[in-house]
């Protein structure tokens, strides 16, 4: 498939950025993660997007609430451990029916050296679901673009709160040992 090979050539972070641009996402609230490095570089280089660096992930739920009140779409970019920090703030998403999109790089599920990542990593999808967020997973590079397009449509055209989890197998386990 031509579209797939083009995305493969550019890489899945480019596919994420393209989906966000297509859906006019303007505010990108984030706590950095290694798996998001290229995406965040693209966001910072894109004059149509405002990156908002957070000290903790729950701040991003508030930022996206304010963005939507003011007419801008946003996305919350974080690592799986950050989902746990967000739980109470996700009340805003449900109470206000906020068109919400989160993009989560997974830790603690595939070749994870650091066991401290496992408790939250193994509960990430359930924590989101408990708060009413629909969860999609991308397991391979070729799935990322379609998953993002589908999630953006559901979030911003349908108003369904969405999270896309990027599997640790897709990103690659972090190397601790040289």
């Amino acid at each position, binding site marked *: 498939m031509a579209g797939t090979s083009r995305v493969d050539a550019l890489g899945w972070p480019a596919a994420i950025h393209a989906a966000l641009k297509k859906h006019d996402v303007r505010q990108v609230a984030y706590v950095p993660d290694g798996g998001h490095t290229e995406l965040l570089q693209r966001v910072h280089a894109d004059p149509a997007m405002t990156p908002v*660096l957070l000290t903790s992930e729950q701040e991003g739920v508030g930022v996206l*609430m304010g963005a939507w009140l*003011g007419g801008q779409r946003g996305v919350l970019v974080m690592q799986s451990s950050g989902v746990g920090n967000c739980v109470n*703030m996700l009340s805003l998403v449900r109470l206000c029916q906020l068109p919400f999109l989160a993009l989560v790089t997974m830790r603690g599920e595939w070749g994870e050296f650091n066991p401290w990542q496992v408790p939250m990593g193994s509960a990430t999808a359930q924590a989101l679901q408990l708060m009413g967020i629909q969860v999609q997973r991308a397991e391979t590079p070729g799935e990322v673009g379609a998953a993002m397009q589908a999630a953006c449509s559901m979030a911003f*055209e349908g108003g369904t709160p969405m999270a896309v989890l990027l599997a640790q197998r897709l990103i690659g386990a972090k190397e601790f040992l040289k």
Partner: protein
Amino acid sequence: MTAPRFQRRPAVARLLAGRRDLLVVSGLGAPTYDVAAAGDHDRNFYLWGAMGSAALVGLGLALAQPKTPVLVVTGDGEMLMGLGGLATVALCNPGNLSIVVLDNGLYGETGGQESHTSGPTDLPAVARGCGIADTRTVTSEAELAALATRLHAIGNGTLFARIPIDPAPLPRILPPRDGVYLKNRMRSALGLSPL
């Protein structure tokens, strides 16, 4: 306690008097009642939960509406729960955002237990340390008037102000608490459709 303390409702009414395009986000608890007591308004978004998020909601709103002044009115307890957010605000530093903390040194909504600001914590110093250049503690009616003038305009960066207030509890003034209604009401006031 020798420092002057303001009455919270007249102080908030003074800040909001003559409002035109100002957008207001209120933090949960008494600040939401204070903003409501000054007059319900389509451009008010009242938080009834999500404690610690008021300044961040104001930030996202200010970034999305850079030509419109945005005021966050919150309390010391709500602000304390989201102190890291002041660093996030300072990094973006929108000139159309003002954060006003009504500081009674108490968790008034839960029975009046003392907060950290009754102890050693100095919120303007925290804000300044996070990088917000214009931080103030309001100590007089003249300074309150100057703050009111400033927050209806666009400045060079974000403003953080602490207003020490009388801790006496007041009757609750309950504004709408339907989040979808409040959201779409503010969006409509900005000419935006529901979805």
